[in-house]
């Protein structure tokens, strides 16, 4: 079943087309990787899909319901969660409270939320930091916190904006494993933006390549990386295989 349908969405900022007529669909339980050079419009695309920005044109459908331009909290309630590339913790709250708030926002009662949140915290491997003030976490911790909060809202689709960036290779593997279990055991559909090609190759069922706001190509991971246009777009950008 098609869970997420994005149909020719566009967005301009003062004449600059950040996202230009982008369409794609995501099947339930699949993983879509989105790649593209810096400034390709990936984060803007996420903002359009998750409701942080209204698209100028086009539509977004989640499980058959039109959510184009809906407020972010409505989209969240409809079953879509996201993480932010620039981490946005609730700085004054502890890690556990951060996740508990997310549970409550998804409807859990004040009493049950902490226990349920604790499970999520354990699951993403933040147990050690559970009672730490979140704004003091190191980058790796904040990335996991983003993930934990998004998971706490028990989404059907999870949009991940560079959850691996800023992690050292040793830290990446457990996160990738976690993402795989999310799909396998929880049946969560994943859409993720990532620079680290190894992760894209390993996780994605299919890949969407953006360049200058447009879809350059899409398809199976291996086809896409062979595509000369993709190689050209990335030329001089950064190595196609290793992360920064």
């Amino acid at each position: 079943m098609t869970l997420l349908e994005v149909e020719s969405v566009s967005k301009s900022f003062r004449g600059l087309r950040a996202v230009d007529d982008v369409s794609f669909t995501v099947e339930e339980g699949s993983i879509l990787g989105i790649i593209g050079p810096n400034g390709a419009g990936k984060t803007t695309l996420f903002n359009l899909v998750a409701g942080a920005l209204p698209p100028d044109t086009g539509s977004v459908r989640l499980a058959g319901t039109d959510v184009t331009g809906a407020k972010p909290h409505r989209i969240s309630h409809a079953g879509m969660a996201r993480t932010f590339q620039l981490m946005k913790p609730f700085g004054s709250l502890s890690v556990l409270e951060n996740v508990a708030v997310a549970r409550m926002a998804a409807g859990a009662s004040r009493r049950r939320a902490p226990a349920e949140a604790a499970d999520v915290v354990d699951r993403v491997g933040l147990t050690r930091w559970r009672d730490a003030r979140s704004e003091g976490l190191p980058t790796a911790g904040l990335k996991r916190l983003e993930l934990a909060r998004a998971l706490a809202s028990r989404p059907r689709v999870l949009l991940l904006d560079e959850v691996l960036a800023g992690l050292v290779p040793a830290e990446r593997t457990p996160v990738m494993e976690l993402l795989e279990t999310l799909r396998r055991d929880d049946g969560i559909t994943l859409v993720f933006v990532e620079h680290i090609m190894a992760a894209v190759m390993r996780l994605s069922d299919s890949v969407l390549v953006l360049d200058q706001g447009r879809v350059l190509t899409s398809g199976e991971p291996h086809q896409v990386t062979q595509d000369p246009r993709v190689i050209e777009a990335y030329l001089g950008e950064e190595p196609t295989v290793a992360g920064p």
Partner: protein
Amino acid sequence: MTRPTTAHGAPAEDGGAVTAADPATDTPVAATGGRAWWRGAVGRTALVLLLAVLAVALAYWRSGSGVVVSQAVVTGILIGGVYGLVAMGLTLIFGVLDIVNFAHGAFLAVALYVTVEMTGRFGVHPYLALLVAVPVMFLLGAAVQRGILSFSIGQPLENQLLITLGLALLIDNLLLLVFGPNPRSVALPGDSGVEILGAVATVSRLLAFGVALVLAALLYLLLQRTRLGTAIRAVAANDTGAQLVGIDTRRIYMLTFAIGTACAGAAGVLVSPLVTIEPTTGELFNIIAFVVVVLGGMGNVVGALVGGLLIGLTEQLGALYLPGQSPLLAVFVVFVLVLFLRPQGLFGSKA
């Protein structure tokens, strides 16, 4: 102002868009340049002029007397010049240091008393007090910024607000202690009424207005044409960025506050013949000056002048529309409308 959270790192790959769409976070500073801005500014000026003409026509219709309306317009423009004069220093401070400086009126009062002493003791022409008041206020401003305000940088908005309020209270009451409560006055030799367009105005007001124009021009040149001005604008636009290119932001903060306070000093001397001088006189201008600053766009000295004129006119014509209501009500209505519709100020660029 939100509570301090994590300092966000370098700008996002393409994620700056969300914040860029939010006008209130922009920090425009005196004419950020660019042709588009000019075209926009000209357009807005035309719009403002059109509105002004409409307002005058309406006022005429309400009051039915041409003399009254032309007097209101002349008075409004002249008072507006004074408002602009007072707001100029404030807008610089607001734009660069991001401080809502409630002590601005109190600084102005200090200059008033400097003028009183100069004319009273030495019998000099009041405007000669400029030579003393401006440098003295410059040094006072520098000292206050270094000695007090610099410690509050990075503190939340309400802390800074309370510190400047405390300063105002302190200065007002020191003036009361030193000079006593009796009202003083300064007379401008040869001050008399002059007729303009069927209305009358005093020479002192005309002069204050003229000097306000000159001062605005000087400040504009300072900001646009000097190295210091460039540095000030850079700090206003982005202080971390300015620091990265080697600008000593601490020094710029101090100099800007000093310049702003010196402007209050100049304003104090110029308005001294127009007001009754008491320790609390400066407070009269505080509220209006803030309105003017927001109207003109913070950090924008030319905007402050234009904003001052608009408020002066609003006050005068508003009194004709709403007889029996306080003219300030009209001022606040305009203020709120501008806040809502153009929070970056009428002449602020949209960055």
